């Protein structure tokens, strides 16, 4: 039987963290295991589509990766004369045995691995790159393409991150209870950043430029399976599903942006919305409600509205009130100002923006200017609104967003001026 290449690709990416996790647990030495595991995945990607799947794909990968690791260590050891570094402490039978369903698929290994990739000592781009490679099973070339940097640059970044892990002697075992919760927050932050990255401007060839939002959903889904009782993991997954459901309605064929108010809601992915709503509805009563759950709840209210006018703004406002208490930040405050304007009128929203603009950096931020433009337009002050849109366009570094903001400004400008 010859499996189709797409199926092999999916299977390999599913197995990637399990293989690496098993290797790291047995041998330690994350940086060496990571190389060996990538080599095994590459060998499988070349052989399986032609030869068919081995009986136990996971065992096959672990065996091949272990051999590569042993080769590596041996060549290093002969140089340094340290032959006892790793070697064959593990009996071959242990590597070859067990069909895939015989043990609970090494979930603890993979989870520990994910925590390691999101270690607080790593910079955020390093955490993201390492997570996509070690957990997501993406190649360095794919990650580089997704972030629009040369492969050599991404390779340096990953190798640097691995060096940091090596130098810090990072333990990949389960973190102590208190730290565990904090580390899980870091993991969620990384997954959310991957989701938001969206540097892939077009839905290009999936194999060369993977859609990061879809990859983030896949990884969060996987994390949710491993930690089904964590409310914030469920909340993040629901949030991603509910936002991603609008993806096709959000841009025109030419790539320009369509704001929420003008989107064709019939094009929203109803199955994905239903899944997200079911998940957040089941999660919210569970106990402490964190920021991801609240953002998911807000997204759910938007997704449930048949039209912009049908939107339950009072409910959105009360959710933003809770979100501001749970996780105060200037961008939450901006969104809350819009909700306030929708409930109590634009003047009330503009008052909040005036208070936010007291912070000089915030006052010049394109998001604040764009929000103020929107509220000024609602209040009938089109001239100031046009000026705000134009200034927001100048200060945005996102090309589609700049085009959108410039169009809004032009729309409001009286002809002939």
């Amino acid at each position: 039987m010859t499996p189709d290449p797409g199926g092999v690709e999916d299977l390999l990416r599913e197995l990637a963290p399990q293989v690496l996790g098993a290797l790291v647990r047995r041998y330690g030495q994350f940086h060496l295991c990571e190389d060996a595991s990538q080599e095994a995945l590459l060998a499988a990607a070349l052989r399986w589509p032609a030869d068919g799947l081995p009986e136990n794909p996971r065992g096959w990968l672990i065996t091949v990766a272990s051999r590569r690791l042993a080769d590596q260590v041996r060549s290093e050891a002969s140089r340094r004369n340290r032959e006892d570094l790793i070697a064959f402490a593990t009996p071959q039978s242990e590597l070859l045995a067990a069909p895939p369903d015989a043990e609970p698929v090494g979930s603890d290994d993979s989870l520990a691995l994910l925590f390691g990739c999101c270690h607080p000592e790593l910079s955020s781009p390093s955490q993201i790159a390492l997570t996509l490679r070690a957990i997501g099973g993406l190649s360095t070339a794919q990650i580089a393409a997704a972030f629009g940097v040369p492969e050599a640059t991404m390779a340096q970044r990953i190798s640097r991150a691995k060096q940091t892990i090596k130098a810090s002697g990072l333990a990949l075992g389960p973190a102590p209870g208190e730290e565990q919760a904090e580390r899980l927050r870091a993991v969620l932050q990384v997954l959310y950043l991957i989701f938001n990255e969206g540097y892939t401007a077009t839905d290009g060839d999936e194999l060369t430029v993977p859609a990061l939002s879809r990859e983030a959903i896949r990884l969060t889904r996987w994390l949710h399976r491993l930690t089904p009782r964590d409310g914030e993991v469920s909340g993040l997954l629901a949030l991603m599903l509910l936002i991603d459901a609008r993806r096709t309605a959000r841009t025109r064929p030419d790539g320009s942006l369509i704001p929420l108010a003008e989107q064709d809601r019939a094009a929203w992915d109803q199955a994905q919305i239903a899944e997200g709503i079911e998940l957040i509805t089941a999660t919210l009563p569970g106990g402490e409600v964190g920021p991801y759950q609240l953002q998911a709840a807000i997204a759910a209210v938007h997704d449930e509205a048949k039209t912009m006018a049908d939107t339950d703004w009072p409910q959105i406002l009360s959710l933003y009130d809770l979100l501001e208490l749970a996780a105060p930040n200037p961008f939450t405050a901006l969104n809350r100002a819009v909700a306030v304007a929708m409930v109590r009128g634009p003047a009330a929203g503009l008052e909040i923006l005036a208070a936010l603009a007291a912070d000089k950096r915030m006052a010049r931020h394109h998001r604040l200017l764009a929000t103020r433009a929107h509220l000024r337009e609602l209040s009938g002050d089109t001239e100031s609104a046009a000026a705000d849109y134009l200034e927001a366009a100048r200060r945005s570094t996102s090309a589609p967003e700049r085009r959108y903001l410039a169009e809004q400004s032009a729309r409001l400008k009286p002809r002939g001026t």
Partner: protein
Amino acid sequence: MKYLMLIYGNQEKWASIPAEEWPAAIAKQDAFNKKYQATGELIGAYGLADDSQAKLVRRENGLPAVTDGPYQETKEYIASFYLLDCESEERALQIAADMPWADQEPVEFWPIMHEAKLDL
């Protein structure tokens, strides 16, 4: 986020540097490049040829028409440019300030537009 750093200068300025100081100067810039290539933040560093090598190109009847120029109105022109990809603007500014001669001459710093579609 990606950023462009520009360094300006002119022949007169470089000619004023004694030849024996060149190796040390080049080594300084090399060290900077290596340091930030290793972190994966410096995508590329490029020095431009002298402005006597620069040309103006137009298309005329479908063919390239090449003329001399540009004739600079400013005394200094771009000598080199550096492409950064950093976690934040704050970090990129830090790297710009770490350029070998940033204590004597400013580094021109431009954010680069990207195609990310933000949620509206």
